[in-house]
């Protein structure tokens, strides 16, 4: 008698467990869905994602939890330096971080990043060739590119119907533009813009060149309404500025009425040069759940997931395979996905080491000269 019961229980258990593996998939081709979760036996119950603000589709966190049973707790930082300070202070209980390009090279030097196991992250192959093996992670050992963008110029086409693709718009502004310009409030970005306009590299450390850039900025200042990296999109939406030094993602929101913006705002990438930045997913050495973190990174690099994320966040995705799933209208938008020749104009901000002190002093002298 007992044996029969036991037998029945075993059968039922087998049936039940078979159902459970099939259950998460409500789509055809169910096995693909489970594969996105790696080896489930090694997964942790939850992971902590330390990320920029509004830089992930909230639905994705829930999807990951539903598919793989891992809760994603997100907390935010507002600058790379805050991220660095937290890690260096040993405050980390973070599993995934999203540092920008130059910060990756710093963190690698400081041995803060865990080399990634690409057996767990095969989706690295989906990333476009332009975005991998860059100077900040030359062997692509520590990061998986997440989103990228440029620091170009947003232009109100009602005032300037046919904007020139040049920094001249802001450094030699016409009368209707003067007084209505906004520049980013960042030493490397704005001094960099001046440097590029003058024909130098954005990472130049020559004192004479930087002094030239400083003079240009001081001269420009009376035509600049605001040095702002946070509300520069609002300024151009309301018309308080006509040309704004903006990051790609901010422009995407500002030019779309559905997200509080308005139509008629174009985006140009100046021909003299323009910053490109890239944010990358990485796992800190101090992460408590490294395997699960890498599984989540792989999940985010899945073409469909990456496409969904890109449409929500508004920044261009470095994931070439995701292009299949992104709205063709967005792909055709050259402001978000510029053509090859425009991409060549982009310059990466690299860490200039001790010369950062020079940039800080130049920037301080500039600020003191215009307002103090």
């Amino acid at each position, binding site marked *: 008698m007992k044996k029969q019961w036991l037998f029945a229980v075993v059968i039922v258990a087998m049936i039940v467990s078979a159902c459970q593996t099939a259950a998460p998939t409500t789509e055809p081709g169910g096995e693909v869905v489970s594969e996105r979760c790696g080896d489930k036996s090694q997964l942790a119950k939850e992971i902590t994602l330390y990320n920029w603000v509004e830089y992930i589709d909230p639905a994705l966190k829930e999807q990951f939890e539903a598919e793989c049973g891992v809760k994603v*707790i997100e*907390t935010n930082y507002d600058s790379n330096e805050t991220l660095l300070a937290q890690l260096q202070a040993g405050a980390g209980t973070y599993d995934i971080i999203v540092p920008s390009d130059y910060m990756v090279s710093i963190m690698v030097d400081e041995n803060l990043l865990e080399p990634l196991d690409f057996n767990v992250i095969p989706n690295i192959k989906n990333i476009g060739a332009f975005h991998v093996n860059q100077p900040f992670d030359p062997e692509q050992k520590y990061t998986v590119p997440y989103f990228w963008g440029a620091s170009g110029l947003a232009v109100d086409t009602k005032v300037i119907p046919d904007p020139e693709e040049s920094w001249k718009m802001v450094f030699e502004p016409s009368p209707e533009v003067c007084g209505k310009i906004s520049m980013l409030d960042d030493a490397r970005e704005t001094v960099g813009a001046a440097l590029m306009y003058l024909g130098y590299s954005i990472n130049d450390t020559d004192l004479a060149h930087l002094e030239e850039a400083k003079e240009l900025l001081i001269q420009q200042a009376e035509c600049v309404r605001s040095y702002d990296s946070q509300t520069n999109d609002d300024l151009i939406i309301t018309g308080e500025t006509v040309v704004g030094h903006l990051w790609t993602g901010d422009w995407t929101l500002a030019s779309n009425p559905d997200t509080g913006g308005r139509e008629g705002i174009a985006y140009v990438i100046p021909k003299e040069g323009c910053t490109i930045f890239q944010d990358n997913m990485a796992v800190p050495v101090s992460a408590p759940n490294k395997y699960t973190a890498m599984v989540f990174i792989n999940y985010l690099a899945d073409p469909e997931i990456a496409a969904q994320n890109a449409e929500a966040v508004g920044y261009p995705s470095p994931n070439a395979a995701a292009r299949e799933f992104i709205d063709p209208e967005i792909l055709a938008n050259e402001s978000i996905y510029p053509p090859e020749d425009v991409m060549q104009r982009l310059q990466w901000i690299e860490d200039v080491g001790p010369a950062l002190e020079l940039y800080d002093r130049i920037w301080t002298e500039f600020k003191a000269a215009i307002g103090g």
Partner: protein
Amino acid sequence: MSAEATVSTGVRVRTQRRPVIRIGSLALSLNAIVIFGFLYLPILILILFSFNNTRSVAQFTGFSTEWYTKLFSNEELQAAAGNSLVIALVSTIVSTVIGTMTALALDRFRFRLSGFLEANLYLPIVIPEIVMGIALLLFFNQALFPILESVIGARPTQGVPTVAIAHIAFNIPFVYVIVRARLADFDHRLEEAAQDLGADEWTTFKRVTLPLLMPGILGGGLMAFTLSLDDYLITAFTRGNINTMPTYIYSLVRKGVTPEINALSTVLLALSMGLVLLSLAAQRKR
């Protein structure tokens, strides 16, 4: 104009003297109105835009309560607000008690180190918040937590307790300064009189000193509560993974101040106003 002045007997006497207190009361009232107007005009704008029917906080296009609905389903924001309130309440109570005690100590007792201690008390007010924030971050993670870890066995993490500790630390001096100012005019003879009448130290304190000190204590407590609710910088470095309202809002400013934040601010305002009305009602009962 000829003036009227009441003398302590209550008899009205016409005099030729210029009224001392009554003149300028129009100017005073005007001053008060202008200041309150200045204080509240942005608040009214805030409230107005919380009912905006688009995402903008710059152009009002129509009426809608969608942001309030969004607010009540935004768990992150609610968690942050909850944290803010808890931290503010705890840090206010503790810092008010400690600050008052310290003010009493330094006011009543003259001892060799009192000058030095006083200077020390002003330090948290003088120090830039960012310095204190980073200093605490380092202290918690490189000193305190390792020590606690070796004692308890588990390494603590930053969160609500560390923020509360930090807030108490910077609130104590503010309470101290305000209560101390109040104590400076304190008439000690009142206490002596009470004791002459047979009251012991504790009763004197409870029934004479404390009530007279109350405006200062309340003022200090009010200041501490406000400072705690509103603090961003020190909280940002000591918070670990949790959010308070200022840190959550600050992080959202990146994408523009949305009306959802205005809605939250309006709700807070309504709650505070409610508090005021409650205290008004409570006082009437007395």
